[in-house]
């Protein structure tokens, strides 16, 4: 997309803020969802900040609440069966206090989202060009022709070789990698301040994954877009993020700069995740699996949520534990100081 394309009147908050300011600040976010058995707490006191241009990684296994965090920020959960508490400040406004109409001006314009499965996010009965054009026309008062041009520019910017032709294709005739490029084009076309990428490369082959990550990071760096990058893949976080948070059972259990967290994890769960990655150098049969499985949301342990699976748990761990902040890091563990003292610091080389 060319930078010279004239922008129409902008709806919603304006862009362009000082780089040291916080762009998005999530404070004590709680989410309850309802199913046939009643309400259940899915997110319990999630807080984090993301600054302009920054890439924040959110890691955790299935069911830890990382996608729910994204959907809460975007307010894409059905209001009848989802209840959100806390504050989500974005560029000076609390998203949770906005009307649906106000929120829909922000969505796609200031914050956009890339989903794991592009096929379920793209509409099969419209051409990809029409879908990107719709996004543009939603947010800018431009002619159809102008919107089409922006769509084609966007497709061009994500490395699609014949954007004019591809714009006329339906999603089904594109490969998985091409579809994900289209998703990125759609996410970028309105030049948002923040992109939430939820497992954007999980469905893709590894050679395509590296193309897509490269593209996403290059474009966002060039434009100063912040990225909230949700993944289960610690290695992707290691290579692409500035800071990270680890989630478990709907809570943040550890956070900090990627270089520090991965070199010296403080939480036994983060350590466990790192140690369970298979590697050619590790003797077979000796991977450190984390025993047991994530507890059900309706039967969360009263104390530390990781306590039933934690190799270092003591009687004390059955008591509630708060998230502590130490300089740039956050940690939710009763025993982190003891454990940090005893464990040999883990270096990248040891992996």
């Amino acid at each position, binding site marked *: 997309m060319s930078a010279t394309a004239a922008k129409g009147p902008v709806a919603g908050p304006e862009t362009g803020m000082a780089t040291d300011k916080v762009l998005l600040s999530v404070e004590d976010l709680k989410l309850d969802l309802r199913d046939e058995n009643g309400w259940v707490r899915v997110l319990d006191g999630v807080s984090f900040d993301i600054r302009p241009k920054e890439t924040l990684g959110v890691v955790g*296994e*299935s069911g830890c609440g990382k996608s729910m965090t994204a959907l809460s920020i975007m307010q894409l959960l059905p209001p009848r069966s989802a209840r959100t508490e806390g504050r989500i400040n974005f560029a000076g406004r609390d998203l949770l206090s906005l009307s649906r109409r106000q929120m829909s001006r922000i969505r796609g314009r200031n914050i956009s989202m890339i989903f794991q499965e592009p096929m379920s996010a793209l509409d099969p009965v419209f051409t990809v060009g029409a879908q990107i054009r719709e996004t543009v026309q939603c947010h800018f008062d431009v002619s159809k022709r102008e919107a089409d041009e922006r769509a084609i520019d966007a497709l061009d910017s994500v490395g699609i070789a014949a954007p004019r032709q591809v714009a006329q294709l339906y999603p089904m005739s594109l490969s998985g990698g091409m579809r994900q490029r289209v998703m990125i084009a759609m996410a970028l076309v309105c030049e948002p301040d923040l992109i939430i990428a939820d497992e954007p490369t999980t469905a893709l082959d590894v*050679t395509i994954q590296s193309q897509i990550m490269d593209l996403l990071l290059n474009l966002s760096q060039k434009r100063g877009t912040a990225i909230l990058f949700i993944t289960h893949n610690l*290695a992707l976080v290691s290579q692409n993020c500035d800071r990270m948070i680890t989630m478990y059972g709907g809570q943040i259990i550890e956070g900090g700069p990627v*270089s520090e967290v991965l070199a010296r994890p403080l939480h036994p769960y983060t350590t466990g995740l790192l140690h*369970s990655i298979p590697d*050619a150098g590790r003797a077979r049969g000796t991977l450190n699996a*984390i025993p047991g499985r994530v507890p059900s949301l309706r039967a969360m342990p009263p104390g530390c949520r990781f306590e039933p699976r934690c190799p270092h748990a003591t009687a004390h761990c059955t008591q509630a534990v708060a998230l502590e902040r130490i300089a740039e890091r956050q940690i939710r563990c009763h025993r982190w100081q003891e454990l940090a003292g005893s464990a040999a610091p883990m270096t990248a080389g040891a992996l």
Partner: protein
Amino acid sequence: MTMAGVDVPALSVQDMTVSFGRTRTIVRAVDGVSFSVAPGEIFGIIGESGSGKSTLGRAAVGMITPSAGAVRHGDVDPFALSRAQMNAHRRKYQIIAQDPNAAFNPRMTILESVIEPMAIARTGTRAERRARALEMLDTVALSPEMAMRYPHELSGGQKQRANIARALVLDPEVLVCDEVVAALDVSIQADMLNLFWRLKRDFNLTYLFISHDLNVVSHISDRVAVMYFGKIMEIGPADDVMNRPLHPYSEALRSAEPEIAAYEQRARERIILQGEIPSALNPPAGCRFHTRCPRAVDLCASNEPDQRELIPGRFVACHFAEEMLARFLPVGGGQEAECVSQE
């Protein structure tokens, strides 16, 4: 571990081609593939989607009939067997698939599902079959209480364990494991890989271990084959192929796999392949990989490289294999250290 040699391979595939479709729209999912797996060996197949690895696995156990070439199970040709013989033979060569959800009847308990293959094979009495099923479920760490549950009451990892137990009840010799850990979270996946290793040891199994995940395959396998677009690009000991790849595609795959590296190292030189796997209906001439290969020259587009044994045990199909190899040979000493340092 026995390497191929004196023993009859547990599984061997010679110039195997599997094609689908007819005349004009024929697709060769597997195109002239050869390898052999020694008894007790874990042979890994790495490939991206569309590389033909699953088709290869199915043909290797006899589920699909190859259009050309030979498959041998020990010294048996599975495709020459009568239907009755094949039914008996099939017990020795089992396949475990990625999605355990598709493998279970939702209306049967886990125990019933694990008993079923024995009932079909008519082994033992009813009581013996039940005892055997419970024994195998115990081997994969599923309690009798779990055995009474229905598939939907189990987690993904537990279902995959039950799936393994079901493959084991008939005393197989060779297991084809097709993306068996792909659907699992990493902590569960680690547990499952440990289990596969233990079972192999305890039951003296041979695995054909198919996955797109380099870390998984290189961790579990003795030897690996790298597949691209229906062909094998490279075969060799897992560690060598990972750390000293002789084919540009293996090298690119390795480079694309994200690693947990020190923060400062993350900007390391990475090979990012351009483009995607070509259309199966219109395969490129010459080397199949030349359309994406960073080293490709005109020769690669016209002449298909033969697979050759460059150094003992390492088979490569690339015109530049010698050059790739030269980078790893100790010329003035200290070269070895250089090629290892990029880990």
